[in-house]
């Protein structure tokens, strides 16, 4: 089976319960940077996080997901993974999906590193045999030594990243969805991490990578999807999309500067 992702007319309205704007008519709706908020009924407000998205990603796609904060990047990744179901339209995903959304998802700070490897491995759909096979590799990669037998809460944040990263990258999915996760870790680790994720990405058939870092996206992706306020604004070569995005960001920053200086005058 050839993996592919098809989104047709996908919309997603987030119901927001218990927000202050649902009990009074006060502002709050207009200031949201994300999707467009609207009142559904007296009890809750809905934020339109995705608005009639049409997208087809065939096997072999390497897409960067680009856009300002609140554009819907994380939401669309969660739709592609099957965690969120569209409230309008249909999403069809075929192939084994792996997600790197939150490096520490599923791990528990009070379990030992070793216990967390098993726990997260199972959560990512691996079998006992698969985890056993990868165990050595993970232990080597994380370089945590006897810390593996200590609870995660005593780890430094760098150590946590090492372990989480090693666990998250142990499965071999058809479809790999990544939500900006790089950052911490010393430089020697970063180099190793990049090597490891490169291999994982190369083994996957479809990659969708949300990130704000031009450098990382240029390494791994060939095409770009530009999102804004829950809509897809542009799909093209990576460089074209990145340029367009940066140009827009520059204009926004300029407009803000102008607005600020006019206030001060």
């Amino acid at each position, binding site marked *: 089976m050839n993996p592919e992702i098809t989104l047709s007319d996908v919309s997603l309205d987030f119901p927001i319960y218990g927000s202050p704007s649902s009990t009074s008519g006060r502002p709050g709706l207009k200031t949201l940077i994300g999707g467009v908020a609207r009142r559904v009924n007296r009890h809750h407000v809905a934020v339109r996080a995705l608005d009639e998205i049409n997208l087809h990603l065939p096997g072999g796609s390497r897409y960067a997901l680009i856009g300002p904060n609140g554009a819907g990047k994380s939401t669309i990744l969660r739709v592609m993974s099957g*965690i969120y179901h569209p409230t309008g339209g249909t999403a069809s995903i075929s192939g084994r999906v792996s997600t790197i959304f*939150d490096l520490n*998802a599923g791990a528990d700070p009070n*379990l030992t590193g070793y216990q967390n490897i098993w*726990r997260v491995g199972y*959560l990512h*759909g691996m079998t006992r045999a698969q985890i056993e096979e990868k165990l050595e590799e993970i232990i080597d990669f994380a370089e945590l030594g006897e810390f593996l037998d200590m609870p995660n809460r005593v780890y430094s944040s760098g150590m946590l990243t090492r372990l989480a990263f090693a666990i998250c990258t142990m499965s071999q999915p058809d479809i790999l969805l990544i939500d900006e996760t790089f950052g911490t870790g010393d430089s020697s680790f970063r180099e190793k991490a990049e090597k490891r994720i490169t291999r994982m990405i190369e083994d996957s058939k479809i990659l969708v990578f949300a990130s704000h870092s031009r450098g990382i996206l240029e390494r791994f992706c060939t095409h770009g999807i530009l999102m804004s306020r829950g809509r897809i604004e542009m799909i093209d070569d990576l460089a074209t999309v990145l340029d367009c995005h940066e140009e827009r960001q520059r204009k926004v920053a300029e407009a803000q500067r102008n607005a600020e200086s006019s206030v001060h005058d």
Partner: protein
Amino acid sequence: MKTFNLAVALADISDGLRMRNVWLRLAIDDLRLRYSRTRLGPSWLSLGMVIYIGGLGLIWGTLFNMDLEKFYPYMAVGLITWHFITASVGEGVNSFVGANGIISAVPLPLSVHINRQVVRVLVSLIHTLPIGFLVSLFCGIGPNLIQLFIFPAVLVLAINCWWVTLFLGIVGARFRDVGHIITTFMPFMFFLTPILWDRSMLKNLAFIADYNPFTHYIEIVRQPLMGQLPPSSSYIVVGVITVIGISVTTLVFARTRHRIVFWL
């Protein structure tokens, strides 16, 4: 926009059951965390129950002039079953809310979180039910073959625990009052359920026990351990509730599965 999808719900349930690795692991980790660095580990469950039964039996039995040899096993098994019921209901409400972090980061069948909860509650039943057996033995009951009826009874409890957890997990995620309603009313229900008293003691109020569904769940566990066959009416009531419960819960799940993640 599809708001009702039975096929997806059933697929979720069967995929969830198949992913034994995941929910067993999560349940084991839950227990590991709850009893980490304790000397007794999950034996605390048993010890707690022994002390509770011992003390309550002594005071209550004396207070009401009960025949302790009959009262102790009656009350012990009743309490143990009641404990299972309150745990199913009380923890069921949080089955999705409590798994929020995993649900929104890892694509998994939602029923995995239900199965995890059921295992947890069953583990505490396994740590307490033998006490009921021992108390009966001590009071001169059995061991006899009728006591084997306890095994189908535990299976029935587990199945009911499953749908109750799923049902309350959904409702409890959407309506946050439900958890509080349950913690408010369960202690009250305890007094309406024949655990510390027998229905014959209520005289013309005995219908309170008969119309209380919890009574029948307790009967199918308690009577076999006391060496008697439960009344067939209890089996019928439990059977009917189980079938209705599973059907309604499956329909509710089919209607809400897509929305649950947004309610967490």
